[in-house]
C-alpha cells in the first residue's frame, strides 16, 4: 500500500461515516477491477445514483484514473482504489460558490495541484488531524490563511510534508467565520507551528486558542491592523 493510500485511510478516522462508505467503495472497486480486467475500454461509471454527494467525491474511477495515478506517483497503489479524477475536478471546476465542498479527504491530482491529499474538516478537527499526521511522521511545512470575503469566511491552510523518501504532501483546510476567527492551536503537537500560527494571527487576525505566546511576529508589536484581510486599506 502506498503512503498516499495509507495516509488517506488514517485521515478518514476524522470522518467515521466517510470511512465506512470508503470500506464499501474500495471493496466494490476491487470487485469491479477484477471484473473489468479484460474490458478496459469501458470507463464509464456504473452506479452514479447510489452514492451520496460525499461518497461521489470518494468514488473511484477505474481505468483512466489508475493510469494517471501510476504515471505521477513512483509507487502506485495496486489493488487500492485511486481517486484522482474526482478530487481534482471537485477542486477546480466547482469552486465554493456553486456547491460547497463537503468535509472529507480528496486525492488531488499532484501534477496539477502540487499536493497529494486534500483534507477539508471542521475547525475543531485540525488538532486531531495534526495528531494523526504527527503519528505518521509528517512535519509541518507552513500554516497560512486565505480571506474569502465574499463568503464571509477565513480559510486556514496547514501544509504537511514528509522528510523521508516517501513523497506525500497533505494539505488540511478549514473554514471559520470572519466575525469570529478562532481556531485551536496545534503548537502543542508541532512546536514549529508556533511561529506559523503567530504569523497567521499577524496577517489575518485569526486567534489560535491555547497558543502560549500569540503576539505579533513580523509586524510591529503595536500594529492594530491585519494586512492580508481583503478589506484592509493602508
Amino acid at each position, binding site marked *: 500500500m502506498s503512503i498516499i493510500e495509507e495516509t488517506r485511510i488514517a485521515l478518514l478516522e476524522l470522518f467515521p461515516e466517510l470511512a465506512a462508505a470508503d470500506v464499501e467503495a474500495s471493496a466494490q472497486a476491487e470487485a469491479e477491477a477484477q471484473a473489468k480486467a479484460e474490458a478496459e475500454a469501458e470507463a464509464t461509471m456504473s452506479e452514479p445514483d447510489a452514492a451520496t454527494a460525499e461518497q461521489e467525491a470518494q468514488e473511484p474511477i477505474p481505468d483512466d484514473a489508475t493510469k494517471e495515478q501510476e504515471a505521477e506517483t513512483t509507487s502506485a497503489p495496486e489493488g487500492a482504489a485511486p481517486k484522482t479524477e474526482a478530487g481534482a475536478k471537485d477542486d477546480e471546476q466547482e469552486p465554493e460558490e456553486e456547491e460547497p465542498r463537503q468535509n472529507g479527504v480528496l486525492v488531488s491530482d499532484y501534477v*496539477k495541484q502540487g499536493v497529494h491529499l486534500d483534507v477539508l474538516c471542521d475547525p475543531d478537527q485540525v488538532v486531531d488531524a495534526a495528531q494523526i499526521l504527527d503519528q505518521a511522521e509528517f*512535519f509541518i511545512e507552513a500554516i497560512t490563511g486565505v480571506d474569502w470575503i465574499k463568503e464571509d469566511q477565513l480559510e486556514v491552510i496547514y501544509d504537511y510534508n514528509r522528510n523521508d523518501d516517501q513523497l506525500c504532501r497533505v494539505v488540511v483546510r478549514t473554514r471559520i467565520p470572519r466575525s469570529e476567527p478562532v481556531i485551536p492551536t496545534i503548537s502543542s503537537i508541532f512546536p514549529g507551528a508556533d511561529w506559523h500560527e503567530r504569523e497567521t494571527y499577524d496577517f489575518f487576525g485569526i486567534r489560535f486558542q491555547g497558543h502560549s505566546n500569540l503576539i505579533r511576529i513580523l509586524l510591529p508589536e503595536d500594529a492594530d491592523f491585519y494586512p492580508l484581510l481583503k478589506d484592509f486599506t493602508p
Partner: protein
Amino acid sequence: MTFPIQCSNDETFVLNLGPQHPATHGVLRVKLTMDGEYIAKAEPVLGYIHRMHEKMAEDQPLPQFMPNTARMDYLHALAYNHGYALVVERAAGIEVPERAEYIRVITVELNRISSHLLWWAAFLLDLGGFSPLLYAFDDREKIQDLLESVTGSRLTYCYMRFGGVYNDIDDDFITGTRDFIKRLRSRLPRYYHDLVTGNIIFIKRLKDIGFITPEICRKYGATGPVLRGSGIQFDIRKNEPYSVYPEFNFDVPVYNECDSLARYMVRMDEVEQSMRIIEQALDKLPDGPIKAKVPKILKPAAGDYYAAVEAARGCFGCRLVSDGGKNAYRLKLRSPTFSNLSLFGEVAEGMLLPDALAFMGSLDLVIPEIDR
C-alpha cells in the same frame, strides 16, 4: 554537547543580541536571558525588515511579482525565481522548453555555489577568521560576473520568465563556467579544506555544538542542510523532482553527527555536487527555444496550487490561490529559514554564548527571507 544548568530566576539578566550585531547577518534580534555565560532562554525577535511581499503579490499582475522573489533570499535569488515560476506554470499549465530547463538548472546551481561560498565566508568571519572571506569572495566574484553576463544583474536576479528564461546563454558563458568549475575544483582542497576544514581551532568550535536531533527537525519543520546535517536524506531535488533534475547524477550529502560541523560539511559537499550538476547540464545542453509561448495577460484557472524547490537553505514553497484573475488572490511564500530559526530557542538553551553564535552561523540565516 550542551550544558544543562539549573538557574535561579533572580540571578539571570537579559542580553539583547542585535538587531545590529554583525553575527546576526542583517537585522535579527535575539533576546537572551543569561545565567552568567550560559543561555537560559533565547527568544528571536523578527520583523525588522518585513516588507509584506505577500500583500504586494495581491496588488500586481503575476509577472510583475517576479522581481520581488529575488529580494527575499538575496543570496540564492534564482531558486526563488524558479519556485515562483514553477507554481505559476503549474497553475496556468505552461510547458517549459527543454533548453530553458537546462539553463535554469545551470544558473540556479551556480547561484547555489555562490550562496554557499558567501555563507562560508560570513560563517568564518563569525568565528573570528578574516582571511577565508577574501578567498571566498574571489571565487564568488567569478560567479557574479558569469551570471551578470546572462541575467543582467549581480545579486537580485529577475531571470526566469513563466515558460522559460529571459536570455539565452552563449559560448562565452559556457566556456567561462567550465573554466570557473576547473578553478574552484583546484582551489577547494587547498584554500577551503586545508585552511579551514582541517583547522583544529575551527573543529573545536563546532564539533558537538548545536546538537539538533532528527526529531527536533521534524517537529519544527527544518529543511535543507540543517536537516541533512542531522542525518536525514531529504532534498526536494531528489525527493520531489522538478525541472530536469532527475536527468543528472548527483548525491545528496548527509552527515549523521547533528552538530554544527555536520551542517558545515553538508554545505561544503553540496558545492561539489552543484559543480557536478552544472558540468552534466553543460554537456547535455540541448538546442531549441528558451521560452514557451505564453499569453501576455496570464489568468490561471481558479484553484489552489503548490510548488516547492530546494533553495540553498531548504525547502522554499509557494502556494498560489487564484480566483481566475490576473493577480494572485493569495500567494503564500514558505521560506525555509523561518522554520529553521524557530528551533533556535529550544536548541540554544543551556549553551555558552559564543557557542550559540557559532550555532546560529551554522543555520545559515538570511533575514530578508525570514521577514519577507
